[in-house]
Protein backbone atom coordinates (compact mmCIF):
# COMPACT_ATOMS: atom_id res chain seq x y z
CA UNK A 1 0.00 0.00 0.00
CA UNK A 2 1.42 3.38 -1.06
CA UNK A 3 -0.49 6.62 -0.76
CA UNK A 4 0.32 10.33 -0.65
CA UNK A 5 -1.53 13.48 0.32
CA UNK A 6 -0.79 17.20 0.41
CA UNK A 7 -3.07 19.49 2.37
CA UNK A 8 -2.64 23.27 2.30
CA UNK A 9 -4.67 25.58 4.49
CA UNK A 10 -4.62 29.02 6.09
CA UNK A 11 -3.14 29.51 9.55
CA UNK A 12 -6.42 29.24 11.44
CA UNK A 13 -6.94 27.31 14.69
CA UNK A 14 -10.00 25.73 13.08
CA UNK A 15 -7.73 23.85 10.67
CA UNK A 16 -5.74 21.94 13.30
CA UNK A 17 -8.54 19.38 13.63
CA UNK A 18 -8.78 19.05 9.86
CA UNK A 19 -5.08 18.23 9.56
CA UNK A 20 -5.03 15.60 12.29
CA UNK A 21 -8.15 13.85 11.00
CA UNK A 22 -6.72 13.70 7.46
CA UNK A 23 -3.43 12.20 8.67
CA UNK A 24 -5.27 9.79 10.98
CA UNK A 25 -7.28 8.55 8.03
CA UNK A 26 -4.10 7.79 6.07
CA UNK A 27 -2.42 6.13 9.08
CA UNK A 28 -5.43 3.82 9.31
CA UNK A 29 -4.75 2.67 5.74
CA UNK A 30 -1.49 0.93 6.72
CA UNK A 31 -2.64 -0.85 9.82
CA UNK A 32 -1.75 1.40 12.75
CA UNK A 33 -3.81 0.43 15.80
CA UNK A 34 -6.46 2.82 17.08
CA UNK A 35 -4.28 3.86 20.00
CA UNK A 36 -1.31 4.44 17.66
CA UNK A 37 -3.53 6.65 15.50
CA UNK A 38 -4.54 8.67 18.57
CA UNK A 39 -0.85 9.27 19.34
CA UNK A 40 -0.10 10.28 15.76
CA UNK A 41 -2.97 12.78 15.95
CA UNK A 42 -1.36 14.44 18.97
CA UNK A 43 2.00 14.78 17.16
CA UNK A 44 0.33 16.31 14.08
CA UNK A 45 -1.72 18.64 16.25
CA UNK A 46 1.45 19.90 17.96
CA UNK A 47 3.32 20.60 14.73
CA UNK A 48 0.38 22.31 13.03
CA UNK A 49 -0.45 24.35 16.15
CA UNK A 50 3.17 25.51 16.29
CA UNK A 51 3.04 26.65 12.66
CA UNK A 52 -0.08 28.69 13.43
CA UNK A 53 0.83 30.11 16.84
CA UNK A 54 4.58 30.56 16.56
CA UNK A 55 5.26 30.51 12.82
CA UNK A 56 2.62 33.10 11.94
CA UNK A 57 2.16 34.59 15.43
CA UNK A 58 -1.59 34.94 15.15
CA UNK A 59 -1.65 36.09 11.52
CA UNK A 60 -4.49 34.27 9.80
CA UNK A 61 -3.30 34.65 6.21
CA UNK A 62 -0.27 32.36 6.23
CA UNK A 63 -0.15 29.01 4.45
CA UNK A 64 0.47 25.79 6.33
CA UNK A 65 1.21 22.66 4.33
CA UNK A 66 0.85 19.13 5.65
CA UNK A 67 2.23 16.41 3.43
CA UNK A 68 1.64 12.81 4.35
CA UNK A 69 2.79 9.58 2.80
CA UNK A 70 2.26 5.97 3.71
CA UNK A 71 4.41 3.28 2.15
CA UNK A 72 4.86 -0.23 3.45
CA UNK A 73 4.38 0.14 7.17
CA UNK A 74 5.82 3.65 7.41
CA UNK A 75 3.99 6.94 7.80
CA UNK A 76 5.84 10.18 7.04
CA UNK A 77 4.24 13.52 7.89
CA UNK A 78 5.79 16.90 7.16
CA UNK A 79 4.35 20.15 8.43
CA UNK A 80 5.69 23.33 6.85
CA UNK A 81 5.12 27.03 7.34
CA UNK A 82 6.66 30.14 5.79
CA UNK A 83 6.56 32.15 9.00
CA UNK A 84 9.16 33.64 11.34
CA UNK A 85 11.34 30.54 11.66
CA UNK A 86 13.35 29.32 14.66
CA UNK A 87 16.72 30.88 15.56
CA UNK A 88 17.92 28.11 17.90
CA UNK A 89 16.34 24.77 17.03
CA UNK A 90 18.13 22.79 19.78
CA UNK A 91 16.86 25.24 22.40
CA UNK A 92 13.32 25.15 20.96
CA UNK A 93 13.29 21.35 21.27
CA UNK A 94 14.26 21.35 24.97
CA UNK A 95 11.47 20.16 27.27
CA UNK A 96 9.56 23.01 28.92
CA UNK A 97 11.16 25.63 26.67
CA UNK A 98 8.69 28.09 25.19
CA UNK A 99 8.94 31.65 23.93
CA UNK A 100 5.35 32.15 25.12
CA UNK A 101 5.05 32.38 28.93
CA UNK A 102 1.47 31.09 28.72
CA UNK A 103 2.54 27.84 27.06
CA UNK A 104 4.16 24.70 28.46
CA UNK A 105 6.86 23.99 25.92
CA UNK A 106 5.81 20.37 25.53
CA UNK A 107 4.96 20.32 21.82
CA UNK A 108 8.31 18.99 20.62
CA UNK A 109 8.44 16.60 23.59
CA UNK A 110 5.12 15.11 22.51
CA UNK A 111 6.22 14.86 18.86
CA UNK A 112 9.46 13.12 19.86
CA UNK A 113 7.74 10.77 22.31
CA UNK A 114 4.94 9.76 19.99
CA UNK A 115 6.84 9.39 16.70
CA UNK A 116 9.94 7.35 15.86
CA UNK A 117 11.89 10.23 14.31
CA UNK A 118 11.48 14.01 14.21
CA UNK A 119 13.61 16.27 12.01
CA UNK A 120 13.31 20.05 12.25
CA UNK A 121 14.61 22.44 9.59
CA UNK A 122 14.15 26.15 10.06
CA UNK A 123 15.62 29.51 9.10
CA UNK A 124 14.74 32.83 10.75
CA UNK A 125 12.52 34.88 8.47
CA UNK A 126 11.96 31.95 6.11
CA UNK A 127 9.90 29.36 7.94
CA UNK A 128 9.97 25.92 9.49
CA UNK A 129 9.62 22.34 8.31
CA UNK A 130 9.04 19.45 10.70
CA UNK A 131 9.28 15.90 9.40
CA UNK A 132 7.95 13.06 11.54
CA UNK A 133 8.08 9.30 10.89
CA UNK A 134 6.46 6.34 12.51
CA UNK A 135 6.41 2.67 11.60
CA UNK A 136 3.31 0.58 12.18
CA UNK A 137 5.03 -2.70 12.90
CA UNK A 138 8.21 -2.01 14.84
CA UNK A 139 8.67 -2.37 18.57
CA UNK A 140 8.05 0.01 21.37
CA UNK A 141 8.57 3.74 21.09
CA UNK A 142 11.62 4.90 23.03
CA UNK A 143 9.49 6.20 25.90
CA UNK A 144 8.32 2.64 26.54
CA UNK A 145 11.84 1.31 27.05
CA UNK A 146 13.25 4.20 29.08
Amino acid at each position, binding site marked *: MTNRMILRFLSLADNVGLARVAVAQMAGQIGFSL*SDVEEIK*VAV*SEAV*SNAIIHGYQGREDGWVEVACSVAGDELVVTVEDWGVGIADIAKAREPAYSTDPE*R*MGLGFVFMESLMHAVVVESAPGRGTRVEMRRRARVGALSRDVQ
Partner: protein
Amino acid sequence: MTIVHLLHGPRLVVALKGDLDLKSAGELRQALDQLIDRFPDRDLIIDLTEVEFVDSSGLGVILGRYKRLSARGRSLQLTGVRPPVRTVLDLAGIAKLVTISDHLPKSPVR
Protein backbone atom coordinates in the same frame (compact mmCIF):
# COMPACT_ATOMS: atom_id res chain seq x y z
CA MET B 1 -16.59 22.55 22.91
CA THR B 2 -19.58 22.11 25.23
CA ILE B 3 -19.01 23.15 28.86
CA VAL B 4 -21.58 22.18 31.49
CA HIS B 5 -21.16 22.80 35.22
CA LEU B 6 -22.96 21.46 38.27
CA LEU B 7 -22.46 21.58 42.01
CA HIS B 8 -21.61 18.21 43.51
CA GLY B 9 -21.43 18.25 47.30
CA PRO B 10 -18.71 20.78 48.19
CA ARG B 11 -17.24 20.67 44.70
CA LEU B 12 -17.75 22.30 41.35
CA VAL B 13 -17.90 19.79 38.52
CA VAL B 14 -17.31 20.96 34.96
CA ALA B 15 -18.07 18.43 32.24
CA LEU B 16 -16.45 19.03 28.87
CA LYS B 17 -17.41 17.65 25.49
CA GLY B 18 -15.25 17.92 22.37
CA ASP B 19 -11.58 18.16 21.46
CA LEU B 20 -9.27 20.09 23.78
CA ASP B 21 -6.86 21.80 21.39
CA LEU B 22 -5.76 25.19 20.07
CA LYS B 23 -9.23 25.90 18.71
CA SER B 24 -11.06 25.33 22.00
CA ALA B 25 -8.33 26.47 24.42
CA GLY B 26 -9.26 30.17 24.64
CA GLU B 27 -12.95 29.58 25.16
CA LEU B 28 -12.28 26.90 27.78
CA ARG B 29 -9.80 29.04 29.69
CA GLN B 30 -12.32 31.87 29.91
CA ALA B 31 -15.21 29.64 30.96
CA LEU B 32 -13.21 27.86 33.67
CA ASP B 33 -11.80 31.11 35.08
CA GLN B 34 -15.30 32.59 35.30
CA LEU B 35 -16.56 29.53 37.16
CA ILE B 36 -13.55 29.48 39.48
CA ASP B 37 -14.28 33.11 40.42
CA ARG B 38 -18.03 32.64 40.67
CA PHE B 39 -17.71 29.76 43.17
CA PRO B 40 -14.73 30.98 45.17
CA ASP B 41 -14.76 28.35 47.92
CA ARG B 42 -15.13 25.19 45.87
CA ASP B 43 -12.65 22.63 44.65
CA LEU B 44 -12.87 21.85 40.94
CA ILE B 45 -13.44 18.54 39.19
CA ILE B 46 -13.09 18.48 35.41
CA ASP B 47 -15.03 15.59 33.88
CA LEU B 48 -13.35 14.41 30.65
CA THR B 49 -15.69 11.49 29.91
CA GLU B 50 -16.69 13.06 26.60
CA VAL B 51 -13.26 14.34 25.65
CA GLU B 52 -11.44 12.09 23.20
CA PHE B 53 -8.56 14.36 22.26
CA VAL B 54 -6.20 16.54 24.29
CA ASP B 55 -2.90 18.06 23.10
CA SER B 56 -0.44 20.42 24.80
CA SER B 57 -2.62 23.47 24.09
CA GLY B 58 -5.50 21.81 25.93
CA LEU B 59 -3.25 20.56 28.67
CA GLY B 60 -1.93 24.09 29.14
CA VAL B 61 -5.43 25.28 30.03
CA ILE B 62 -5.85 22.51 32.61
CA LEU B 63 -2.44 23.15 34.15
CA GLY B 64 -3.04 26.91 34.20
CA ARG B 65 -6.30 26.38 36.13
CA TYR B 66 -4.45 24.06 38.53
CA LYS B 67 -1.99 26.88 39.25
CA ARG B 68 -4.76 29.44 39.81
CA LEU B 69 -6.65 27.11 42.13
CA SER B 70 -3.67 25.95 44.18
CA ALA B 71 -2.57 29.57 44.68
CA ARG B 72 -5.94 29.96 46.45
CA GLY B 73 -5.61 26.73 48.44
CA ARG B 74 -8.09 24.88 46.25
CA SER B 75 -7.66 21.57 44.47
CA LEU B 76 -8.24 20.23 40.96
CA GLN B 77 -9.26 16.69 40.05
CA LEU B 78 -9.69 15.11 36.64
CA THR B 79 -12.24 12.38 36.14
CA GLY B 80 -13.44 10.25 33.23
CA VAL B 81 -9.98 10.17 31.66
CA ARG B 82 -9.94 7.99 28.51
CA PRO B 83 -6.83 6.02 27.49
CA PRO B 84 -5.62 8.38 24.70
CA VAL B 85 -6.06 11.36 27.01
CA ARG B 86 -4.26 9.47 29.75
CA THR B 87 -1.25 8.97 27.46
CA VAL B 88 -0.90 12.73 27.03
CA LEU B 89 -1.38 13.42 30.75
CA ASP B 90 1.29 10.83 31.57
CA LEU B 91 3.79 12.26 29.08
CA ALA B 92 3.38 15.63 30.76
CA GLY B 93 3.64 14.18 34.28
CA ILE B 94 0.33 15.73 35.32
CA ALA B 95 -0.50 12.98 37.84
CA LYS B 96 2.14 14.45 40.17
CA LEU B 97 0.03 17.60 40.53
CA VAL B 98 -3.55 16.64 39.89
CA THR B 99 -5.60 13.69 41.18
CA ILE B 100 -6.86 11.58 38.30
CA SER B 101 -9.84 9.30 38.88
CA ASP B 102 -12.12 7.23 36.70
CA HIS B 103 -15.32 8.26 38.44
CA LEU B 104 -16.76 11.17 40.38
CA PRO B 105 -16.23 10.90 44.14
CA LYS B 106 -19.35 10.14 46.16
CA SER B 107 -21.14 13.25 47.34
CA PRO B 108 -21.07 13.49 51.14
CA VAL B 109 -24.43 12.68 52.77
CA ARG B 110 -25.92 15.71 54.49
